[in-house]
């Protein structure tokens, strides 16, 4: 690393970088602000930039590429921290724009079947509750299948959400066969002419072959009633997730053909930077983001806003 690392203010900005990295909400921001008041974009500055992106969960490969492309544009030029952030936010926006697509409900599918899956505790049930609230507001009739028959009080939790969102919840006995329950719910939704059926599943880790096979079975069984179902398969991920997100998307996609992602808990200090890498690698749409525990706390995924928040800029 060149001597320039000491740049303006002696060893100052490295120290500021460190404290910047340690402070939560201003993670990437703070570091970049700390880096330059206005300084040359040299090798050392780029390394720090890359570090800041890594600390935002973008992963080494993506961080290196982004820092590199900024370097191609501006190497050795004087640049301010705001410019750096804005330029990076632009690059990230470009990566995210193609995947920022809302969940389209095809009204010709009746009911439109949405299967919701993900690892334990990622926010599946809450997201279903929030979505049900939105569908109700759009005047759609919703049925929810409580196919998490494993976790303690999962049904009761979903029932509360059903009441909040004015949706019927179909449940079975604890330990009942999830696929059978989903099948029954689809029959019922069809008979009742519901617009949308959402299926809540138990959280499962993607390396559990048995549990993944169980999920596959749900898909197989409901396809017997409607070979186009499920019409959407959502993978719910928590924004605190690190690099394991790659393995999650890969396995869930391979097993049950995930059609889109939802990222929850973006109201925390983690900004879900891994989504950038996921967008590059898998190109799966990101439909929505969770920003709280209330029924209204689900927002569309907006590439620009997400990228700017990742870089600590106002949307």
């Amino acid at each position, binding site marked *: 690393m060149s001597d320039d690392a000491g740049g303006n203010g002696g060893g100052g900005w490295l120290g500021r970088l460190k404290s910047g990295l*340690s402070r939560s909400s201003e993670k990437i921001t703070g570091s970049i602000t700390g880096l330059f008041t206005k300084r040359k974009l040299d090798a050392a500055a780029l390394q720090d930039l890359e570090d800041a992106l890594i*600390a935002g*969960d973008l992963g*080494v490969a993506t961080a290196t590429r982004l820092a590199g492309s900024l370097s191609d544009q501006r190497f050795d030029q004087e640049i301010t921290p705001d410019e750096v952030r804005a330029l990076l936010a632009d690059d990230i926006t470009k990566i995210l724009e193609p995947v920022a697509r809302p969940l389209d409900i095809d009204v010709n599918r009746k009911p439109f079947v949405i299967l919701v899956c993900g*690892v334990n505790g990622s926010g599946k049930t809450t997201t279903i509750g929030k979505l049900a609230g939105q569908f109700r507001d759009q005047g759609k009739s919703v049925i929810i299948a409580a196919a998490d028959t494993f976790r303690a009080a999962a049904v009761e*939790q979903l*029932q509360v959400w059903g009441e909040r969102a004015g949706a019927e919840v179909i449940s079975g006995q604890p330990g009942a066969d999830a696929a059978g329950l989903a099948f029954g719910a689809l029959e019922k939704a069809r008979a009742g002419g519901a617009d949308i059926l959402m299926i809540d599943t138990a959280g499962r880790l993607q390396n559990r072959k048995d549990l993944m096979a169980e999920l596959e079975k749900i898909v197989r069984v409901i396809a017997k009633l409607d070979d186009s179902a499920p019409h959407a398969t959502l993978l719910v991920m928590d924004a605190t997730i690190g690099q394991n997100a790659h393995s999650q998307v890969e396995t869930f996609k391979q097993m049950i053909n995930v059609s889109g992602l939802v990222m929850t808990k973006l109201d*925390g200090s983690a900004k879900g930077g*891994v989504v950038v890498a996921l967008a590059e690698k898998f190109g799966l749409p990101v439909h929505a983001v969770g920003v709280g525990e209330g029924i209204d706390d689900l927002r569309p995924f907006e590439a620009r806003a997400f990228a700017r928040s990742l870089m600590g800029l106002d949307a």
Partner: protein
Amino acid sequence: MFESLTDKLSGIFDQLTKRGALKEADVDEVLREIRLALLDADVALEVAKDFIERVRERAVGSDVLKSVTPGQMVVKIVNDELVVTLGSDDGGINLVGTPPVAILMVGLQGSGKTTTTAKLGQRLTKQEKKKVLMASLDVYRPAAQQQLATLGEQTEVRCLPAVIGEQPVAITKRAMQMARLEAFDVVILDTAGRLHIDTELMSEVQQVRDAAKPVETLLVTDAMTGQDSVNVAREFNEKIGISGIVLTRVDGDARGGAALSMRTVAGCPVKLMGTGETMEALETFNPERIAGSILGMGDIVGLVEKAQQVVEEEEAERMAKKMLKGLFTLEDMAQQLSQIRKMGSLEGLMGMMPGAQKMKSQIADANVDDKMIAHQEAIIMSMTPKERKNPKVIKSSRRKRIAAGSGTTVQEVNRLLKQHKQISTMMKKAGKMGKRGLMGGNMPPGMMGGNIPGMR
């Protein structure tokens, strides 16, 4: 006891097996790879940087085992440092205090608090025969209290009945009250998940803490947490003060770097790990397992360990053979003396040996005085290699020369030679103790495994 002895002895062998030292260039090259591995395992960048710096200092100049490349050696050193960092302090759950003692479970939403509460309740009941009461303070998440009540039924651990509308601090007080009246040993308080940046909820849990005065406050974290883990650990620790970490979902394929990050910034041990959704799936934290998964280079580490074993076995055998023959040269003695100087008195060392009681008097006769050891080393250094190999050739003229060369007297040289003779006789006996003895050469390989290169 025996273990500490073998540890010390393997320290001696370490000296003997020196086969060149790690060069800075070798170390740096490997550490670049290690950095990537750590980041890929979600070790927070700031933690990864400090960790690598520490390993660099430790690794440069340390010994490379024969049949192992410098790169492989560095990986092993990194692994060992990871194990030590992750595992320092013992991971037991503290239950010391006037019963009922409280354990407070905190963490982000969905991290596994409720499940862990029930698992821990079951563990303390079954394994430690404690009378445990669980209480849910989660008045926010739908059916959260119901979830804990159901798990309480499954595990047959008592759960405080919920009262509709009651707030967390009030629930806490009621739980502690009930525990006092009904003579419970432990109360586990399961709190609602909260974001560390949510000041209102953080102050709520502070009030709960002040009401319960927990002996343990456990931060429950998911093994797949990314870079934000440092912020979570730091904030929870600053605001509430945590005494331990529980890493959940270790049964997944996440590499679990958050364990290292959180342990480092919060400065408290990872005590437990969740390895599944069933109530039995709670284990004492296993630093080797998590270090292995963070580094993801288990094959290399295994290879170096095997090489270490071979070297140790060979050395043990070589020493044993030598001693059996009474071939304990003055060179060996000098080496042992310097080791002894590092590890404490020879008497203490021999005292730890099984069946060494008899030898004690001989050691006393030998008059090995720790303060004299430096002199003795100087005497040996003043001998020619040939003299060191075969002390019999040291006649009076040579003794004079050696005394002058080492700044000692002929009497001192005489005494040293006498001592050497006594010690080598004694060692011969030790060798004959065979299997039970320390140099039997038949020691199970693992017994010598205490030495960690570069970590003396």
